């Protein structure tokens, strides 16, 4: 693709979009607006309209329901445990991948990405087959009276599995971009590993890390499939917020389902806004990339 194009007219004079018929641009824009409207925008607007269709009062009443509050509590507990855990793992994995060359590096990278391509249901099933009543460790866990499946530990394991790649994924490129020169300089000047990490590495990767943490949190709070398999879905006990939404819908408590859905949608909107802001901060400028 390296033709000599130095004599080609510059893009200022003949923008390609003006060379196509006038109707192409409005037509394509309308197609996109229609497609995104029907598939994404209308469904999102519908969440808010349904939730407030009975008025704000009904919405609040639904939010004060006992099982609903229990599901919010469980969702927060899960996020509070899983997000830090996966942040530590993600930082370690990103450092290992970005700062070393070793045989099997590509394999390790694909392994970290694996949870993205495994169906959430299969992810949950793996833990059931390991810790469930008929699983490999089932009889032993039973004799020790430890409950993992249909209890909090199972939900934590499934959520941690699903959200494992996010932090590493976001931190690896910024870590590679930052290079190791500053870290080496710090170490030469006598800083120990912790000091180097806190004072040099962390400030360099902070926006990428924050973005990874936000994505992890969003998925941890919203995960449905994997949690549905391991949680047992006991209302008020092992029901997370997404499970509450589905359960309420299946029991024809549509308003209640939509009230909970509003919270999850707001979480998604906040995540998208944060993503937009952070991407602007972490975007690798093309000139720097070439250098």
């Amino acid at each position, binding site marked *: 693709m390296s033709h000599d194009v130095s004599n080609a007219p510059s893009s200022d004079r003949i923008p*390609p979009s003006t060379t196509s018929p006038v109707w192409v641009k409005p037509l394509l824009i309308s197609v996109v607006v229609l497609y*995104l409207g029907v598939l*994404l925008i209308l469904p999102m607007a519908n969440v808010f309209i349904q939730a407030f269709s009975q008025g704000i009062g009904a919405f609040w009443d639904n939010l004060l329901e006992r099982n609903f509050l229990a599901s919010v509590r469980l969702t927060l507990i899960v996020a509070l445990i899983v997000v830090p855990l996966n942040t530590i793992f993600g930082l370690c994995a990103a450092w290992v991948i970005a700062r070393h060359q070793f045989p099997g590096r590509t394999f390790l990278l694909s392994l970290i990405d*694996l949870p993205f391509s495994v169906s959430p249901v*299969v992810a949950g099933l793996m833990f059931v087959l390991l810790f469930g009543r008929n699983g490999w460790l089932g009889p032993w866990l039973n004799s020790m009276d430890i409950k993992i499946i249909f209890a909090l530990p199972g939900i934590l394991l499934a959520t941690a599995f699903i959200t494992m790649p996010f932090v590493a994924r976001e931190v690896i490129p910024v870590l590679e971009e930052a290079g190791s020169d500053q870290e080496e300089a710090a170490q030469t000047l006598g800083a120990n590993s912790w000091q180097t990490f806190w004072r040099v590495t962390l400030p360099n990767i902070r926006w990428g890390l924050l973005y990874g943490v936000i994505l992890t949190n969003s998925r941890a709070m919203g995960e449905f499939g994997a949690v549905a398999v391991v949680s047992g879905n006991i209302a008020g006990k092992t029901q997370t917020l*997404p499970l509450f939404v589905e359960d309420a819908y299946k029991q024809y408590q549509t308003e209640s389902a939509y009230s909970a859905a509003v919270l999850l949608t707001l979480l998604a909107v906040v995540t998208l806004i944060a993503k937009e802001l952070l991407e602007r901060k972490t975007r690798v400028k093309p000139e720097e990339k070439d250098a």
Partner: protein
Amino acid sequence: MTTTPLQSSQNWNPLRWWGQVSWPWRITVGYLTLMLLIPMTAMILKSLTEGPVNFWQVATDEVAVSSYEVTFVTAFIAALIDGVFGLITAWVLVRYNFPLKRLLEGVIDLPFALPTAVAGLTLATVYSDNGWIGSLFTPFGIRISFTRLGVGVAMLFIALPFVVRTVQPVLQEMEKDIEEAAWCLGASPFQTFYKVVLPQLMPAVLTGVALGFSRAVGEYGSIVIIAAGIPFQDLISAVLVIQKLEQYDYAGATVIGTVLLIFSLISLLGINFLQVWGRRHES
């Protein structure tokens, strides 16, 4: 920082290696082993205890085969449709300026961020017989929610950002010079698009379609809500796994789950291959 902890010596001792490496290595390898390798091995071993004959019988059972057909064919069609509309969307977002562009740009990632249960709930309502969009189709006798079409809509929803976000950067980096050269040499805008632009974008479009397809095949949350889960009609494999688990048919769930797992591993390889091909295409 420059040492390679995995020295390729002849007699490599994992225990000695573990003692020598720093904590990040231990955490990475330990966590991956506990959370990923052991559960995956447990599942594969469990499916092996079924024996090949039994495994084959369960995996090719009538209901199972119909669930593969519903899952894979619907996901494939949905990914292709998203391939076309995703390409148009990426094109419009990169090449044109218009009011509300920022809103569209932001909304693209909604399927990544919105919990799948919420997606299923709201799609089921909007596309139901008396929903905003579903009611437009009712006069023609077309039902969307609780049929295979509903499964398709949920898959369209889930797969779209993969195509747009894979094509967009490639389109952004693409030199306009070649397009202009083609145009100067007398090619019509459509010839320019088909002969010059599309071939350059094809690897990215295919990668996006493959990513979306792979994601749509594994999707559960939104489909379990928008579909009725009736065998031979709109029952997908992931829902079948759950149905089998609910009937305490662990062996059946394991077999179908293993089939899905093998598919994910193969698609992971395929997508890696597509990405390598795309990178070679670019340079």
